[in-house]
């Protein structure tokens, strides 16, 4: 039994990618869950908000690169990120003003708001296409690896290598910072408390003199920020292609529902749960098992499901949660 090598393979191909992906999903799901908690509808446009935000960040990154500005070992996109967030927040506030506010005032059924968000999704999709096109872009620069396979092998003398790309470490790091900041904001600041109060009980919050429009504006700004950060990290880690951001909507919804819609802590847990299940189910385990059980030569790849069905994993998780615990693991809103 060769535990060291098995562990290295596991870390390299399962744990590290899943942790990075989980952080991206968690940030996305946080945005969905916040919008749900305050505005009480599932925002189908969230994936395309991510795409739009990432698109602006990429354009700004190119601009910065053309001016010769870089962040040293870090990707230039990090400098562009705040500006991208600002632009996305403007767009999202604009859509709220033009679209959602009307239905909110009318107290329309949530499903009407969902449908309006589908319309917004269409428009944002088109805007992203006009802005940056439908092609695939890589925009990560700076140092590629914190640890590459050869250095690791030389360091440890193990035949299996471990690579830690800087975008992966960056993803987890940025996500942690953002989550801590978000929870500090929600729990410690007056505006954050107002948001939570509004989410818990709208009428009571109104009676206590909380300005609902201000809460809604704050929510959209935070959601736009989370979406842009999540989208940029996802794009840095993999690559940017507008359509992928539509497809990532399903795992994000699954994560938000698993954690309980409207529950921020649940969204984070759900994001990592979905990401780890997805990677674990679609990873061919044959090498890990080969190290753990010497002399055993499995005929297949020991892969439960082909990678092309990774979305089926989030779907199955979603179905199981809906069947057994529709309010999610952390008891979100059951309305």
């Amino acid at each position, binding site marked *: 039994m060769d535990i060291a090598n098995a562990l290295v393979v596991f870390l390299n191909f399962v744990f590290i990618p899943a942790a990075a992906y989980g952080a991206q999903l968690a940030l996305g799901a946080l945005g969905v869950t916040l919008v749900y908690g305050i505005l009480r509808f599932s925002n189908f446009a969230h994936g395309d908000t991510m795409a739009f935000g990432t698109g602006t960040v990429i354009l700004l990154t190119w601009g910065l690169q053309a001016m010769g500005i870089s962040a040293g070992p870090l990707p230039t996109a990090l400098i562009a990120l705040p500006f991208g967030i600002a632009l996305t927040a403007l767009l999202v506030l604009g859509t709220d003003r033009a679209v959602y506010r009307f239905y909110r005032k009318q107290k329309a059924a949530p499903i009407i708001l969902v449908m309006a968000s589908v319309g917004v999704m269409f428009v944002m999709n088109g805007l992203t*296409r006009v802005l940056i096109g439908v092609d695939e872009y890589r925009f990560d620069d700076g140092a590629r690896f914190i640890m590459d396979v050869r250095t690791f092998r030389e360091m440890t003398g193990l035949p299996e290598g471990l690579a830690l790309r800087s975008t992966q470490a960056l993803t987890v790091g940025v996500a942690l910072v953002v989550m801590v900041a978000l929870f500090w904001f929600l729990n410690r600041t007056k505006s954050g408390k107002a948001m939570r109060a509004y989410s818990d009980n709208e009428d009571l919050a109104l009676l206590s003199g909380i300005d609902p429009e201000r809460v809604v504006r704050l929510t959209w700004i935070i959601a736009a920020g989370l979406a842009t950060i999540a989208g940029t990290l996802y794009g840095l880690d993999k690559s940017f292609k507008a359509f992928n951001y539509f497809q990532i909507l399903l795992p994000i919804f699954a994560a938000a529902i698993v954690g309980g819609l409207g529950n921020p802590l649940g969204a984070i847990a759900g994001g990592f749960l979905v990401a780890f299940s997805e990677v674990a189910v679609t990873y061919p385990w044959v090498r890990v098992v080969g190290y753990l059980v010497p002399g055993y030569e499995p005929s297949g790849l020991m892969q439960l499901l082909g990678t092309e069905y990774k979305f089926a994993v989030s779907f199955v998780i979603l179905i199981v949660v809906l069947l057994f615990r529709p309010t999610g693991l952390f008891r979100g809103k059951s309305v």
Partner: protein
Amino acid sequence: MATNRQAASSSSRWRAPVLFAVLAVLFVLEGTVRNSMFSGSWNTSLAILNMGLISAITALGVNMQWGYAGLFNVGVVGFLAMGALAPVLVSLPPVEGAWAAGGTRLMGALLVGLGTLAMAKLAWTRTRSGIATTAVLIAGFVAYRWLFDPAVVAIEANNPARHGNIGGLGLPVLLSWAVGGLFAAAAAWAIGKVALGLRSDYLAIATLGIGEIIVAVMKNENWLARGVMNITSIPRPVAQEVDLQNNPDFVEFASSWGFAAAEASGIWVKLSYMSLFLVVLLAIILLAELALKSPWGRMMRAIRDNETAAEAMGKDVTRRHLQVFILGSAVIGVAGAMMVTLDGLLAPTSYNPLRYTFLIWVMVIVGGSGNNWGAVLGAVTIWFLWIKAEVWGPALFALLTAPLPDSAFKSHLLDSAPHMRFIAMGLVLLLVLRFAPRGLLPEK
């Protein structure tokens, strides 16, 4: 489900005929006038109309779910794809050697798969033990993969250049339209069982998921329909153009109308398809209208307008929702089968949710949710505009950007003109939803 549901205002009874007449004029213009806006070819005009009719049937299915029951189905593309499999599995000629290679084993695997799910359900309801249910699922999964994997390898190895799929049953292609409806209904049953009865967003999210998964299955399971290698040569229910052109009677008939044989044969084939589609469309509308006027239809609308009240009256809301969800999906499945028959081709990569889910939604909302004729009008109109926007959009852009000096910015704008269709459709959806939520033809 429009937001304001007052009793029908006195909308003129001429509204529908006039709007349909305007639409007809557009198609006639497309067929006769050749200028920068219209192609002046009856073949193009009828091709748009045929696809428009299929969209109309899809829209009818969505309208049943949304207009009658307020269910938001975001997986239309998946149900269309489900239906699209039917012509492949029913009407293609059997593939030589495929069944011998692994057909029985494959069927066994699928039965084991379904059996496992049923057993797991049984285990859960009987024992409420998570461990027992998981054990059943794991044992079933192992047995399934043990049967399934070798069967698929054997089938896909069978003449992979031309086939590699399980093949069809060689039955008439028209029969497959009904089977397509059944396929989609089965998928709808499974998803509806899980997601209905919970809050309304959940059905939307679950259908979004099933839509993506069905398309992924179609792309990757080569034994089923050759995946991305596409299935061509799906049998046609109407004559071939070439046969018509070689038929002296037809050539004479065409020239008596002043058409060249090549053009006339295309028109003839499209008219034949059109009549088939019209028969299906009218039959579905007839059934839907009868159902809507029956006590069942009144009950459905009562549930939609006030679930709580209907439930208090003893109506089983979840069951009725499941029923109408399955019916609507079956209609979408029929449309999916018809679309593959029209194209003569199953190309899984073309199943894009933006085109097949959300465009259909725009059709339903614009047409007037809850009104079957509205769905038809909306579908054909939006489809016409969607196709023509491909031509009109760049022309409009060229006109608008003409005063700008030649620059990278201008060429970028011109290049992105095709994407404007998405923005335009999204804006149409948002504007109609807000300012005319009852659509072109409001529900009576």
